[in-house]
């Protein structure tokens, strides 16, 4: 009798154990399929593999800048800011107007470079200001309202920004001249364009700066405190409203930078650009664990690579299924591991 009543180590309730099992087996199946798929492609076309990976990383960097905006805002007020993608679109439009129409720069020369840098600052200021205004006018009033209300407001805001996009850009895609060089370097048969290098040169410092601000400065500390507990933060003398505004400003600024980089590297703008890229960026943020800054960057790079591989590899679904692949990843993650790759598992607060 006594032998059967042996104390087992507690590993969670039956439901938790079952969930863990589902998660693990799901991850194993997906991992196996991924390995087979990547292996087959690697053997078949190694150079192409490297090539699309580079392209994917480049797109991933762009997604990272947008994804950070989602993750920052979600981290602090638990709101999925649907309008963020459209803010990025406005940033792209602003940059094109700034460089081409207001400053008449069409070639890659010294004047072009100076305008590019000016446009970077201007676009960041522009989008940051708009994001702060959106928060001030629409979201702040709804901060204590039931979740559904700010979410619907954010969707409405997204439509409002798209309307501005239609009026500003026109309802069809628009081509723009670019001021950054479009040359290429070949390295072991892999083409690395100058655009990629510029993208890295602009995005990497921004990401480092952001990490510094959030982790080392007093403002960053206030942000983290507000994210943890608004009321406690207020009691500690933190101006919660100002901190949230600051967060929106940073998120907006990053979206503005992404807008400029996108517009300069791709050269086309469209009013519904923000919707698609915003969703991809949001997926990245969720993949990495929403609310986690490193997670957003990691998720964005992964999504970029997966998308690049799917679009460019010989054995793949191809570009026309690109969106479907990304959203399938999103749904799988939310089903299997809602906390994301780097996020901490949280139970719903009660």
């Amino acid at each position: 009798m006594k032998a059967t009543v042996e104390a087992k180590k507690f590993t969670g309730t039956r439901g938790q154990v079952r969930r863990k099992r589902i998660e693990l087996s799901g991850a194993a199946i997906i991992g196996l399929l991924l390995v087979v798929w990547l292996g087959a492609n690697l053997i078949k076309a190694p150079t192409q593999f490297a090539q699309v990976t580079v392209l994917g990383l480049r797109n991933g960097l762009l997604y990272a800048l947008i994804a950070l905006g989602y993750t920052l805002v979600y981290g602090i007020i638990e709101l999925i800011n649907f309008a963020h993608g459209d803010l990025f679109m406005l940033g792209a439009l602003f940059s094109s107007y700034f460089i081409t129409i207001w400053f008449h720069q069409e070639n890659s020369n010294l004047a072009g470079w100076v305008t590019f840098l000016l446009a970077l600052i201007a676009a960041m200021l522009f989008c940051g200001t708009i994001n702060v205004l959106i928060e001030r006018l629409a979201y702040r009033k709804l901060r204590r309202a039931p979740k559904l209300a700010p979410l619907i407001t954010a969707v409405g805001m997204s439509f409002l920004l798209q309307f501005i996009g239609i009026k500003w850009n026109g309802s069809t895609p628009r081509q723009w001249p670019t001021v950054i060089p479009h040359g290429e370097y070949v390295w072991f048969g892999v083409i690395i364009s100058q655009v990629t290098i510029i993208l890295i040169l602009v995005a990497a410092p921004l990401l480092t700066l952001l990490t510094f601000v959030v982790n080392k400065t007093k403002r960053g500390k206030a942000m983290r405190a507000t994210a943890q507990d608004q009321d406690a933060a207020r009691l500690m003398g933190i101006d919660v409203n100002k901190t949230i505004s600051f967060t929106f400003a940073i998120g907006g600024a990053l979206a503005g930078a992404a807008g400029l980089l996108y517009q300069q590297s791709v050269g086309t703008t469209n009013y519904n650009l923000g919707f698609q890229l915003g969703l991809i960026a949001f997926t990245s943020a969720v993949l990495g664990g929403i609310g986690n800054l490193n997670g957003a960057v990691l998720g964005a790079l992964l999504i970029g690579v997966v998308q690049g591989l799917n679009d460019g590899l010989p054995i793949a679904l191809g570009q026309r299924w690109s969106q479907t692949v990304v959203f399938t990843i999103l749904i799988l993650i939310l089903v299997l591991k809602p906390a994301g790759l780097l996020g901490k598992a949280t139970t719903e607060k009660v």
Partner: protein
Amino acid sequence: MAVSSQRKWATGYLIAVVLLFITYQFLFPWDGLPMGIYDFLQLWLPPMAVNESLVYVICALGLNIVVGYAGLLDLGYVAFWAIGGYCAGWFMSEFFYMVNLHFFGSVAKVAPGIHVNFWGVLLIGGLVCAFFGILIGAPTLRLKSDYLAIVTLGFGEIIPQVFFNGDDIGGFNLSNGTKGITILDPIPAGIKNIGPFDFGYKFIIFVFLAFVMIFISLRLRKGRLGRAWLAIREDELAASMMGVPLMQTKLAAYAVGAFAGGLGGVAFATHVDGVYAERFNFSISIFLLAMVVLGGMGNVWGVILGALLLSWINSTGLPAFGQTFNNRFGTEINFPSFTFLLFGLVLILMMLYKREGLIPESRLRLILHEGDVEEDLSAKESK
């Protein structure tokens, strides 16, 4: 009080329906109708727009069950619309010409393709959608509400893209891609078959479907399931403590909502006499959401009003107003392009200033303004 006001609404709608039917079935084609009235009707209230708005009513009522009753935000409702539409395309046309299957169809037996009776297709479309609703809901409904919104949004993006790219799925033509499936069977309705241009009779059918949805919505709400939905919407934790099975109840909301989406999809397919993949885009999901929000989440009559109003503005009101305005003042403003502004503003302003909608549901008003008192207090403190 509640009963008498409902009866008032119902009588009002019935009178409106009869008047509209008489107008379009008998008055509209009548030669003696003064040209001025004819032009006015053709510009401001064409029969096509009336029927379309009824399709929106059906779908908005379905979305109302998910969003208004159960409080789950669904941003991918267009997926159900698309699935319903393609059910009509598959089972009511000559699209699958390689087979010859008839089931009380309304065309000659020799015609190739699958021809199922319209009423049967309605059922199929609804059930297939309900199945997909459960399929997408089962793994995701335990997520937090905003995650759920995103999953539905992703689903709403994937399904139309599958149909869009569906002309070559492993060599099989599932949906005819961008060309879509055209020319559906006429609707068999006892004495005669209703073709694509019988607006008057089709109006009656759509009204009937809308009535079915209204009936379902009202009855469900009064019953055990409806009360469970409201309980979940108001406080999930309390509801589960009181013994409401959360998953089953939420899934039921999803299934019923999706069923309505399927009905709407089939109805829309017969309305435009075909299904086209590019018509099923995200803005339709938002459009429907705006209808529910504008009218009043959870209130059937409000949602109907919101659906009729917004769909009329979108299909007729705005273009007609634009045309009149431009003719009158000699301007060339593109009014239909303002729809984005309109929907955006409706969502934002309603949420900021009148969260309970035009015709509020009393219970919901209390919940939606829960935080306001605290906000006032903190505002006073800071002064």
